[in-house]
């Protein structure tokens, strides 16, 4: 049971996983506890004070009754006693005592007796019995005080609802509750104000990952946050410089290789043997593809192409037509038009890579375009070995090929998926991999129809 409760609390804690929520929760619980404790002590002391005051008043009243009754002749005593009743007490004069000690409220009555003797010893000079009424012994609310007069007669004072206390006003509860609510509101605002920069950091680092461009966070706020912001911006700039350096180096090499490849293309015109010429040309083709993919990878989704409404089906038609012209088994089904905002050449490259992969590793490509309310889904199925779920992450990493044994056969050097993934993400879309029940890999690309932020 305790364990289950613990589980519930941990679960709840996990659900409240934002800093603002957690702080609010802690403040709420803390203020609640303090609130309850202070309310309890306040009420407790208030009750005590009231009791003391009541007892003192009672003692005074009893003393006054005793003195008054003593002074008058016996036949008037009952009248005087009755006249002096009032409030919670009702006094009568009689020859015998009506109270009997003990009973359900004995402890309390004893305490009351002690107190009365203490405040006004005169009351108890001739004898004092506090207890229940002889006739109604078991009513704890009806205390009966019997005071003996010097002449052995008795004044019996019944105390109605002795335990009834003046209720604590709702005002106290209201004011403390208001105070607590105020404190909570202030703490929520404070926490939000403190955590706002942190949210900014998260957004900036995501943006750095997405666009590979530094989004500097404002360097203000409390000293600690300011220091963090400065360090964070510095880190962003350094990462940016590293990426730029790497990109420039790789781009320079790639560009510089273009001229020698062009020269080689001319030189093989002189190669007489057709067999040798064809294989050199094929090698040059492969080198060119690698350069092209490398440069596309370096460009990432930062291609200088503008976003326009495009027909994604027309792009897929071009790619599948070209592939089938080259003798590959490709098919295209689904809707005839699908309009999305996008970069035409980038998407053509992305889907070209995906369909190329399907042909290379899965012998054929079955492309299906589906129209959904918010997205267009393009799924590409092949009939190859598929990708194990644990390899998906690796397959998306640059320069990784999942099947080293097939390198020679399939060519390429592991950028196709990386580029396609970057382009799809750059369009606010997503790419998922699943293995078809009847074998083969299904790559599903979801592209949003809504306008993209530029």
């Amino acid at each position, binding site marked *: 049971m305790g364990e289950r409760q613990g589980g519930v609390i941990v679960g709840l804690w996990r659900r409240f996983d934002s800093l603002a929520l957690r702080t609010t929760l802690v403040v709420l619980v803390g203020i609640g506890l303090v609130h309850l404790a202070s309310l309890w002590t306040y009420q407790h002391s208030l009750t005590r004070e009231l009791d003391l005051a009541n007892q003192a008043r009672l003692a005074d009243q009893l003393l006054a009754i005793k003195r008054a009754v003593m002074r008058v002749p016996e036949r008037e005593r009952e009248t005087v006693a009755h006249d002096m009743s009032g409030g919670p007490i009702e006094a009568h004069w009689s020859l015998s005592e009506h109270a009997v000690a003990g009973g359900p409220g004995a402890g309390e009555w004893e305490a009351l007796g002690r107190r009365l003797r203490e405040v006004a010893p005169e009351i108890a000079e001739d004898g004092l019995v506090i207890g229940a009424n002889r006739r109604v012994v078991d009513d704890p609310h009806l205390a009966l005080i019997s005071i003996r007069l010097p002449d052995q007669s008795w004044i019996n004072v019944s105390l109605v609802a002795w335990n009834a206390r003046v209720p604590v006003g709702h005002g106290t509860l209201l004011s403390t509750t208001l105070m607590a609510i105020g404190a909570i509101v202030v703490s929520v605002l404070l926490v939000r104000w403190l955590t706002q920069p942190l949210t900014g950091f998260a957004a900036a680092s995501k943006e750095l990952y997405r666009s590979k461009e530094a989004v500097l966070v404002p360097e203000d706020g409390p000293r600690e946050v300011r220091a963090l912001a400065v360090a964070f911006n510095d880190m962003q700039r350094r990462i940016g410089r590293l990426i730029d350096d790497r990109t420039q180096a790789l781009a320079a090499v790639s*560009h*510089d290789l*273009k*001229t020698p*490849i*062009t*020269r080689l*293309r*001319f*030189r093989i*015109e002189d190669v007489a043997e057709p067999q040798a010429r064809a294989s050199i040309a094929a090698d*040059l083709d492969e080198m*060119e593809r690698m*350069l092209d993919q490398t*440069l596309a990878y370096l460009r990432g989704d930062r*291609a*200088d*192409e503008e976003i*326009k*409404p*495009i*027909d994604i089906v*027309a*792009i897929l*038609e*071009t790619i599948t*037509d*070209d592939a089938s*012209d*080259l003798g590959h088994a490709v098919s295209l089904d689904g809707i005839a*038009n699908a*309009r999305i905002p996008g970069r*035409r*050449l980038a998407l*053509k490259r992305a889907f070209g890579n995906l369909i190329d992969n399907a042909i290379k590793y899965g012998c054929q490509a079955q492309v299906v375009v589906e129209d959904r309310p918010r997205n267009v889904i393009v799924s590409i199925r092949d009939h190859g070995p598929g990708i194990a779920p644990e390899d998906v992450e690796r397959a998306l990493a640059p320069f990784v090929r999942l099947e080293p044994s097939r390198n020679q056969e399939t060519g390429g050097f592991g950028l196709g998926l990386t580029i396609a993934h970057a382009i799809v993400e750059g369009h606010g879309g997503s790419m998922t991999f699943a293995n078809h029940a009847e074998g083969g890999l299904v790559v599903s690309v979801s592209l949003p129809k809504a306008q993209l932020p530029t």
Partner: protein
Amino acid sequence: MSRDVAQQAQPIKGLLPSSFEVLVVDDDGEILILVAKFLRSNGFRVHTARSGAEMNEALKHAPVDLIVLDLMLPGRNGLDLCRDLRRTSSIPVIMLTAKGEETDRIIGLEVGADDYLPKPFNPRELLARINAVLRRMRSPDQSSFERSGRAMQFAGWRLDTLKRELTDPRGVVVDLSTGEYDLLLAFLEAPQRVLTREFLLDAARNRSIDAFDRSIDVQVSRLRRKLDGVDDLIKTVRGAGYLFAADVTRG
């Protein structure tokens, strides 16, 4: 000099390519030698230059029909040279570049180049482009449109010849393969005229030498599908070829 160049820009020569003179401008000596050798073996008379200054010098002394101009040159680059050249002459220019970014291609065409070839290119591709540009120069009205207007419009559609981009009446960009683009361009250059299969095949093949082995009928049906399946636009003329039925406006 400007008058010389302007006069040379109107070559009225025979149809044999052997009589055409080509000026190749590149700072890479090896490329110059190789390209010159290749073009000579294909019947061209070839001049070479390593810089803008050498290019201008060569233009003074030879009746050049076409310039193959590298974009990256020491001193003034290819874009500047092309822009300068266009002020005084309409000699066709094919721009070469190792950059290959889409914007570079567009800028190259905007400063007045007639075509643009990214490195590394295939010798046969260069040859095909040279022939295509020279062929277009032979008919004066066609040579001028490429430079003056960058867009052609028909039946609500629009073809941007700089960006090589087709836009449908709703403003959606429709992708075309190289073959489909060339085919559509051939239709747009000669609307309301019956074009034979041979002519269309030739027109398209001249620009791109890559896999255009599919019969022209397949290409036409693909192009029709891209044009939203509007059969009326491209009409089949039984036994003769095809006819582009819409009116084409330029600019």
